[in-house]
């Protein structure tokens, strides 16, 4: 039609005035430039902080880890990878590694499973839900150092209520914090006590987010028992939540410090020396900042490995809908 042909010609002429690749040649429009400078301005303070508080310190720790530097001493030697080799043959460090592993193995599974079971029980309750949730959450908002002191009283071998209860039940009393065989278990009990409430709240959120229709569909499909319901609907749907809870719990367990520093200071006989406490002692009590830095790098390495394992292995099995 005549109209259309005219339009095409005008458009064609227009294109000849402006080169087609104008935008591509300048790289960006004025709008993009404005956005870019605004973004940089917004990020500048944080970027500077990151440099000063994160990047430089991390590089410094990395550098220090290869030396045998000591705080207050001028000279230090560059040891290179020997620093790490020495670390991994140091019995004390390996002991700390083992203790932390045992602690995590005691705290993580127990607090996750207990958190899940309690969350399922609370979720089935309609009336008392908020009450129980708050009660179980109390330890999370209580000062760790303070509650550790309370547990020290509770666990006192002679007049601590825990042993008094055991005696009343006719069971032998336990030397909780004073025996190198029991101390990790005692600390783990405190750790579980403090972590359950947090996991519970997370699981509760995950449970209430499950589409109710799935349970109705399962019922119609003939899924009768609570056990089948759990494996058919609840467990698969909780996948992302479970992944998160396990990750957080393990990472927090690896970072255990307050209870050890308050109650046992690594004892008795180094039975409760955990990674962070050892780093603290080496670096700030013995002032061996070179060694402590190497330990810190290993510590970060452990956290990284934990995170990677869980992201890779578990994410395959987690079903995001």
């Amino acid at each position, binding site marked *: 039609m005549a109209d259309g042909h005219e339009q095409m010609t005008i458009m064609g002429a227009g294109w000849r005035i402006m080169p087609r690749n104008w935008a591509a040649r300048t790289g960006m429009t004025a709008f*993009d430039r404005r*956005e*870019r400078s*605004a*973004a*940089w301005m*917004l*990020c500048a*303070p944080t970027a500077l902080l*990151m440099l000063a*508080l*994160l*990047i430089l*310190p*991390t590089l*410094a720790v990395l550098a*220090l880890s290869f030396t045998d530097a000591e*705080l207050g001493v001028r000279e230090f030697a560059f040891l290179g990878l020997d620093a790490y080799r020495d670390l991994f043959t140091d019995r004390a460090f390996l002991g700390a590694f083992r203790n932390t592993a045992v602690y995590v193995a005691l705290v993580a599974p127990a607090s996750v499973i207990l958190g899940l079971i*309690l969350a399922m*029980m609370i979720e089935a*309750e309609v009336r*008392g839900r*908020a009450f*129980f949730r*708050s*009660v*179980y*959450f*109390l330890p999370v*908002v*209580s*000062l760790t*150092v*303070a509650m550790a*002191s*309370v547990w020290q*009283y509770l666990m*006192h071998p002679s*007049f601590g209520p825990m042993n*008094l209860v055991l005696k009343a039940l006719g069971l032998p009393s336990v030397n909780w914090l004073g025996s190198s065989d029991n101390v990790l278990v005692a600390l783990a009990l405190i750790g579980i*006590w403090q972590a359950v409430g947090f996991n519970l*709240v997370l699981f509760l959120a995950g449970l209430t987010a499950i589409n109710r229709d799935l349970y109705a569909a399962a019922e119609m499909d003939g899924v009768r028992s609570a056990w089948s319901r759990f494996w058919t609907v609840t467990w698969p749907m909780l996948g992302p*939540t479970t992944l998160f809870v396990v990750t*957080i719990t393990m990472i927090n367990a690896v970072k255990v*410090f*307050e209870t050890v*520093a*308050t109650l046992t200071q690594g004892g008795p006989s180094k039975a409760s020396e955990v990674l*962070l406490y050892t780093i*603290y002692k080496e*670096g*700030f009590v013995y002032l061996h*900042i070179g060694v402590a*830095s190497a330990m*810190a790098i290993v*510590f*970060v390495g452990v*956290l*990284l490995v934990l*995170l990677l394992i869980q992201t890779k292995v578990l994410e395959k099995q987690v079903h995001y809908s």
Partner: protein
Amino acid sequence: MTLQTLSFSRVLRLGLLALGAAIIVFPYVFMLSASLKPPEDVFSASLSLWPQHLAAYENFTKALTRIPMLRILFNGALVCVVIVVFQIVFALPAAYALAKLNFPGRGLLFGLVMLGLLVPIHAISIPLYAAAQISSLLNTLAVLIIPFILSVFAMFLFRQFIKAMPDELIHAARMDGLSETAIVWRIILPNAWPAASAFAIFSVVAHWNDLYWPLITISKTQLATPPLGLLFFRSAEVGDDYGALMAATLIVTLPLILFFLFAQRLFIEGVTMTGLKG
């Protein structure tokens, strides 16, 4: 659905929950009970909760005077509040840029945020301590605050939250003539309130509880935060005066618990939100 009746399974469930609750609460009960007891009662190894002789006055006085308890509580509160404010002030603009703006270096910055999530303060405490020592900042309140001003967790959380906000909100603001900075404080902050309060709670609890950093940077009792103050109290106390120690722990634990009881929903929603985005 249908109203709940008292079936056997429900009674069992309630019973187990109550038992669990009792175990959870058991330390608090004994903490309170021991704080009222004189040493003889504590050592008497009886399970009775009520003391033979009321020593509340003595215990609490010791708790408040052996160390400058009120000052220490104030330090803790001040440090936590200042930290949170600075954290949000620094993190929010950057989170907005990461979430909604396009600029070279965005990927790098986000990568650094993820890196920062991996590196806890403990790992980099040595150089930070050395820097503090060199700049004579040890034993000041500033040293308790400055290293924590940067919070990559805040940046991560806010970024996720802001990403979910509709773009139209920001386009409308731009058409109204707001600069990007104004957008952050006038538009984003009010709408990101749930994320901000969730993060604030998380940060306050974490820093109120922190022992590691105050332990290495503070040696003067006057400047201690509650965890450190409690450690000083323990070493100042001669012998096993558990009564006084329990009184001290009670005083130190009470503020956050009261805050929690008043703002329960805020806490629970905060934890839930960090869980959903994490």
